[in-house]
């Protein structure tokens, strides 16, 4: 029996396409679609449940060249592409032969999500939250952010005509702060870590000051998180309707990793791809590796940590979906691994040097973990592998601050020849 979430929210099923209800991932309690995120019974996370109709490869391939080609699999209205939205997605899946050769891999692809409108994968999830906010009648969009999300929310709010007020920890990279502020919304830095910001937002939402706000990753989180499924759909479609054998995914809260698994499972259930095994690997920075530590110890729960890493977009010390990441990696035969800040920087350079992709620190984390797990013999070098780059290196320039000009010379041929570069 579906419970009513709150008296003020009426059922909005028609506005959410094939989405039919919210379901507690812990205890299975079901709720009408509404702006709620935690189970009333057990505080567990709520997931969007669907009644999918017939979905074919052809119907998807005829859709727009962005995430809305998968709208039948998302909690959005059927005419979503007509609404003002950032229309992210369909980013390149780069065949990374030079990186593969250097690492000793047979077949490697980089899913380069820096190609999204605000240069990170966050545009995918925010696109879902915007549509949910519209349905629920929110006029202000908000979030707790490690930087990329703040920019994505600011831009999407501007495009769709929402007010925005977003919260970040003080001390983020300058490029992320500027990019979050330029869209004209309010940007508030909070003295503390991301986990402090997150706690603040969770309290604000229970206060009259914030009760009418759409927090994309709090009260809109069940819808928002579904956007990460589109990474799975795109990778499979771009591989020729095939799920890769292995995939390396960064872990911040862990939601993205669990949603990519959900996306693959849906494609298999709908018969859009062959039902074959795949292995999911999670990547963290050593300075914020609560899930990797739990993995090493064989735990099913995650002990929070205080983050200290240059990979600020992954610096969530108390990851909400950590236990589910452990479940997914165990079930698929994957693993969770971490790399040091030095390895992150070196891996950013490796990816740039071999594939012409300038990743932000999170991409250094995934590339570093790819290399480390290959060296340890955990990843199969013969298996088709995908590694995610979820953001743009221009936002974390300080990570490679030692990089610069090779030489400064007078404008003459002799000076160039004398510089010893040939």
């Amino acid at each position: 029996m579906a419970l009513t979430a709150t008296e003020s929210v009426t059922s909005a099923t028609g506005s959410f396409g094939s989405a039919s209800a919210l379901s507690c991932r812990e205890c299975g309690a079901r709720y009408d679609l509404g702006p709620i995120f935690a189970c009333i019974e057990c505080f567990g996370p709520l997931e969007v449940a669907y009644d999918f109709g017939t979905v074919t490869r052809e119907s998807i391939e005829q859709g727009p060249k962005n995430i809305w080609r998968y709208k039948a699999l998302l909690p959005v209205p059927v005419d979503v592409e007509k609404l003002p939205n950032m229309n992210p997605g369909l980013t390149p899946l780069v065949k990374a032969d030079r990186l593969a050769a250097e690492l000793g891999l047979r077949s490697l692809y980089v899913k380069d999500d820096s190609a999204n409108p605000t240069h990170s994968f966050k545009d995918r999830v925010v696109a879902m939250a915007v549509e949910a906010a519209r349905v629920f009648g929110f006029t202000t969009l908000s979030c707790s952010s490690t930087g990329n999300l703040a920019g994505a929310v600011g831009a999407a709010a501007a495009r769709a005509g929402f007010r925005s007020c977003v919260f970040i920890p003080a001390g983020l990279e300058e490029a992320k702060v500027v990019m979050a502020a330029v869209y004209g919304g309010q940007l508030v830095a909070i003295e503390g870590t991301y986990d402090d910001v997150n706690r603040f937002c969770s309290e604000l939402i229970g206060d009259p000051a914030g009760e009418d706000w759409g927090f994309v990753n709090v009260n809109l989180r069940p819808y928002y998180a579904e956007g990460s499924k589109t990474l799975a759909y795109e990778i499979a479609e771009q591989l020729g309707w095939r799920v890769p054998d292995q995939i390396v995914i960064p872990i911040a809260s862990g939601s993205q990793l669990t949603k990519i698994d959900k996306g693959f499972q849906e494609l298999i259930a709908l018969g859009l791809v062959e039902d074959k095994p795949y292995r999911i690997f999670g990547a963290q920075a050593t300075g914020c590796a609560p899930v990797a530590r739990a993995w090493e110890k064989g735990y099913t729960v995650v002990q929070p940590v205080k983050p200290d890493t240059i990979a600020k977009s992954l610096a969530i010390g108390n990851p909400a979906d950590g236990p589910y990441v452990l479940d997914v990696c165990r079930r698929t035969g994957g693993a969770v691994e971490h790399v040091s800040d030095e390895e992150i920087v070196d891996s950013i350079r490796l990816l740039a040097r071999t594939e012409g992709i300038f990743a932000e620190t999170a991409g250094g984390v995934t590339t570093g973990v790819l290399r480390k797990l290959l060296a340890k013999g955990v990843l199969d070098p013969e298996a088709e592998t995908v590694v995610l780059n979820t953001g743009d290196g221009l936002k974390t320039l300080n990570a490679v601050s030692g990089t610069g000009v090779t030489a400064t010379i007078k404008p003459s041929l002799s000076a160039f020849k004398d510089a010893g570069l040939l």
Partner: protein
Amino acid sequence: MSVSVRIPTILRTYTKGQAEVSAEGATLKEVLADLETNYSGIQARILGDDGAIRRFVNIYVGDEDVRFASGLDTPTPDGVQVSIIPAVAGGC
């Protein structure tokens, strides 16, 4: 010792809509037991059958996540703010 406890929206059915209530106790465990005395049923929503804090509940005493302190044995000095918050938030 009297402390102030912030109640998340989904538990306010127990507190008749109040967002903040007072409770007594020298440790978090005692504070939660006192809450149960006044708002019957609320403790079972915060603690699991094993008596531990549910994995999707965060509790703060002042600014400290009690998982970084002494869990249910964390001291609750007079006048401190205790916050109960759903853990499923943030990130992606």
